[in-house]
């Protein structure tokens, strides 16, 4: 009974594993080249669905790009050459991870700058508070108040 339960669980998991967008007929014969194509496909955006990689997507254009990536690899391109080939046609947008360059400095460094700025602000705020600065200086006591204070202090001492 226990074994049949386990077996059915294994069976269900096996059947429901995520379907591959990559069709068997698209795959390259050389497993090493196919692995490179899969890795590259994960970094390239499907221009139709936009938040999926071409490796994930069932869109026709993603399929075309998968085939073309494999053609480039078969032709002897390096990974970088394949990426350059696609970027030359679709721009940096096709890369799911934006490149680090002058026009993307704000994108990459912005969060760190914001965080640094926030830390600096807090540091300033706490330093001031610790020094008591920033709080209004107490008004001096009037002669009447001073007399009351003196009498109270005298009373407590007795």
């Amino acid at each position, binding site marked *: 009974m226990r074994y049949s339960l386990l077996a059915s669980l294994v069976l269900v998991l096996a059947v429901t594993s995520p379907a591959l967008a990559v069709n068997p007929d698209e795959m390259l014969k050389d497993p090493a080249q196919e692995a490179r194509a899969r890795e590259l496909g994960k970094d390239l955006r499907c*221009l139709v669905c936009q938040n999926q990689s071409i490796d994930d997507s069932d869109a026709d*254009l993603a*399929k075309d790009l998968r085939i073309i990536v494999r053609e480039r690899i078969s032709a002897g391109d390096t990974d970088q050459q394949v990426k350059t080939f696609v970027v*030359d046609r679709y*721009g940096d947008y096709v890369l799911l991870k934006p490149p680090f360059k002058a026009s993307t400095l704000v994108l990459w460094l912005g969060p760190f700058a914001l965080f640094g700025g926030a830390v600096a602000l807090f540091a300033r705020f706490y330093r001031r508070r610790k020094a008591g600065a920033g709080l209004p200086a107490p008004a001096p006591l009037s002669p009447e108040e001073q007399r009351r204070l003196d009498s109270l202090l005298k009373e407590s001492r007795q």
Partner: protein
Amino acid sequence: MRSGLYMLPVLVFGVLALFFLKGLGLNPREIPSVLIDRPVPEMTLAPLPGRGDSRGLDTADLKGRVSVVNIYGSWCIACVQEHPYLVEIKKSGTVPIMGIDWRDDPVMGYAWLKKHGDPYERVGVDPPPGRTAVDFGVTGAPESFIVDKAGIIRYKHIGPITPDIWTRTLLPIIRELEKK
């Protein structure tokens, strides 16, 4: 804290809100093309069977005058929408339009032109995996490119060409390029 610093979150929110508000009006399909100001890709496309052409569309066809390259397919629904207007442009003789039948069964591609009208001077077939379309950086159909006399891509329009887009945006660019 009297320095107005307490206004900072409101300010930051205001700036972000402006960006988001602008973002609402943007079309995520309109990805800026990197092919603007670059020569049209090299291509030698086969003719559409039945149309009676001895050859399809070559890179050389896009040189010597301003032209429009239009990506279509018989499977493309938005193409049905823009097509009557393309036929009208053809009748007016304003500018030659070249068609690329993308990711299509060429027989269907021709039947579709017979049904909806043929606005094209030349038509080339780009079967899957659509190498020429990828060279053009095509992300969907219909898409249209304005090519100048030297065969340089000068403008890309994503989506159907409407009379409004044609008269307000595309035609002025074509007129300007024809002057050069």
